[in-house]
């Protein structure tokens, strides 16, 4: 097992810069999600770490050893592919045995290791089946067993749950996390699903246009996004734009919004504030104001009921704000109703414009 250091890695395909000076430190034994929209470079980065493709410049180290020019078969990595990539001409057990067998391990050793890996993914009895006889979730588990049976230094997962339906995906998230903890392997996980990234990983790196936008633990990125992109890509956010007042912003219409967290900016600079929809309280009356809370008046334009919560769309000065309210059984607000929105400065993140 080993950590992975990516330092100043760049990779271009023709005129397109797929990776632009990317540096990330993947800690030993950690579960790391690379999150980004399609074309953000997250898969390209994974392929550089795997060794399917080499960077134009920069350094990649696995366990402290430089590998950026080492071909994939010599890197001792395990990889799970989006479409599972099981060998259709082999049984499940032979698929799992492949890595050990090309390495020339003895037959009894292979048999024991394969059985242990299949037991770990709870497919101990299906070794004799062919891949096409398995369900999507089972194939996923075989792919995982095949990737970890060789005891790789790093486990790389390329959108491994993308092809599964919602319920199965949640099961596999838990399962994957359990197995990762059990063997303690450094895991790098590419996904475009922000919920998956939030629930599974110790750290998240958000990529956009080949650059790392923000990197850190899920709570930190969610609570203190450093850019509008990070704020809106990981979770939902209301974005207010205006001029910095040093501890908040002033909207074009003169309204001040106080921000308790985020960047330190000189007064007068262009800036934004991000507020999560679930941090905003919504009420019909103007009273019950708590001292320093940010307050805005608006009108409900739409309500979406989702069982455990409701999302209100509130029109305010040409901007549509989103507010999520837990279903506590309290009176629901009707569309067209005038409302007051309140939230604390501690829930408001100051972001430099750009």
């Amino acid at each position: 097992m080993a950590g992975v250091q990516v330092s100043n890695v760049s990779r271009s395909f023709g005129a397109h810069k797929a990776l632009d000076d990317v540096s990330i430190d993947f800690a030993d034994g950690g579960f790391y999600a690379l999150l980004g929209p399609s074309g953000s470079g997250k898969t390209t980065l994974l392929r550089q770490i795997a060794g399917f493709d080499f960077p134009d410049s920069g350094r990649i180290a696995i366990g402290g050893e430089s590998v950026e020019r080492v071909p994939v078969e010599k890197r001792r990595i395990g990889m799970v592919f989006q479409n599972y990539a099981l060998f259709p001409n082999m049984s499940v057990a032979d698929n799992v045995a492949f890595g050990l067998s090309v390495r020339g391990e003895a037959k009894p050793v292979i048999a024991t290791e394969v059985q242990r890996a299949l037991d770990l993914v709870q497919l101990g009895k299906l070794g004799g089946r062919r891949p096409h006889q398995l369900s999507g979730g089972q194939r996923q588990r075989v792919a995982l067993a095949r990737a970890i049976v060789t005891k790789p230094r790093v486990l790389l997962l390329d959108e491994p749950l993308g092809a599964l339906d919602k319920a199965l995906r949640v099961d596999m998230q838990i399962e994957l996390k359990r197995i990762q903890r059990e063997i303690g392997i450094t895991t790098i996980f590419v996904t475009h699903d922000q919920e998956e990234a939030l629930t599974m990983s110790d750290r998240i790196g958000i990529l956009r246009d080949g650059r790392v936008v923000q990197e850190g633990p899920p709570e930190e990125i969610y609570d203190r996004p450093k850019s509008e992109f990070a704020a809106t890509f990981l979770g939902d956010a209301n974005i207010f734009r205006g001029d910095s007042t040093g501890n908040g912003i002033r909207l074009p219409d003169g309204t001040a919004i106080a921000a308790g967290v985020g960047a330190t900016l000189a007064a007068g600079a262009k800036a934004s504030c991000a507020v999560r929809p679930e941090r905003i309280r919504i009420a019909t009356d103007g009273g019950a104001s708590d001292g320093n809370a940010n307050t805005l008046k608006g009108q409900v334009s739409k309500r979406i009921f989702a069982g455990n919560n409701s999302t209100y769309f509130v029109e305010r000065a040409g901007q549509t704000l989103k507010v999520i309210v837990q279903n506590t059984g309290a009176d629901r607000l009707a569309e067209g109703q005038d409302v007051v929105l309140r939230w604390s400065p501690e829930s408001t993140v100051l972001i430099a414009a750009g």
Partner: protein
Amino acid sequence: MAVEGAVASRSGLRSALPLLAPAYLWLTVAIFLPLSAMVFFSFMTELPLSGKPWAFTLGNYAAFFSQSLYLTLLLASLRLGLEVTLWCVVIGYPAAYVLAKVLKGRSREAIFLLVILPFWSNGLVRIFSWAMVLRQGGILDTALNAVLPFKINIDLMYSYPAVIIGLVHSYVPYMVLTCYLTLQAIDDSLIEAGRSLGASRLQVLKRVIIPLSMPGLVAGAALIFVPVVGSFMEPRILGGRTGTFYGTVIEDQFVAVFNWPLGAALSFILLAVVLVILAVASPVLRRAA
């Protein structure tokens, strides 16, 4: 359920009949009837069209067994078929691999066209152009002597290698095409998965790519082996005196000696031998695939 299924499949067959009928009608008229006539001829002493009196006989088949020449020629033809098929694999498979897995877009189309081109040229033209290349003082001989500092004498014309060269040229596109189709169907991520598990490119080729493309290899081999065993044009033109094979002997019976019954009998013996070979080989090949 089973009854319903049977009804459904029967009605499926009925609705498919108009689609199947033209092909089968054509096959019946164009192949089955003449072939039946040939079976009939092969049991006759004389061709009925010649006006001479004729009778039924097994003599044409007996001739094959009574004269060792026919067996010798058949074995030579089988060996020729095997060698040509092998060369087609050696030459065609790598080409198919590059076409399917390495080249993309325009360059793939261009190379593909070059592979197909022999198909579109007339067979005789193809063979005679080889004759110009291979003979003494021909294109190959002249070109090599122009380049090399010492004098060499290339005269491949009327030799066994010339027959092989001509046949491989004619039939290699079949191998390229059938292998290309199966290779192209192999997901690139399977190759990447193999390498991520520590397998070298050669190990991936041996354990993943070749087994998965086996159906294409088998189909290509069958498409090449069968006609090559019965071939007569390439052996006759490029092989000259050395080009006497089973196929040329059959051809002689039809166009030179006018012993159609013997020619027909020899053809059917060949067909039987080829079918037996394919039947014996198919379980082995299927297991490999």
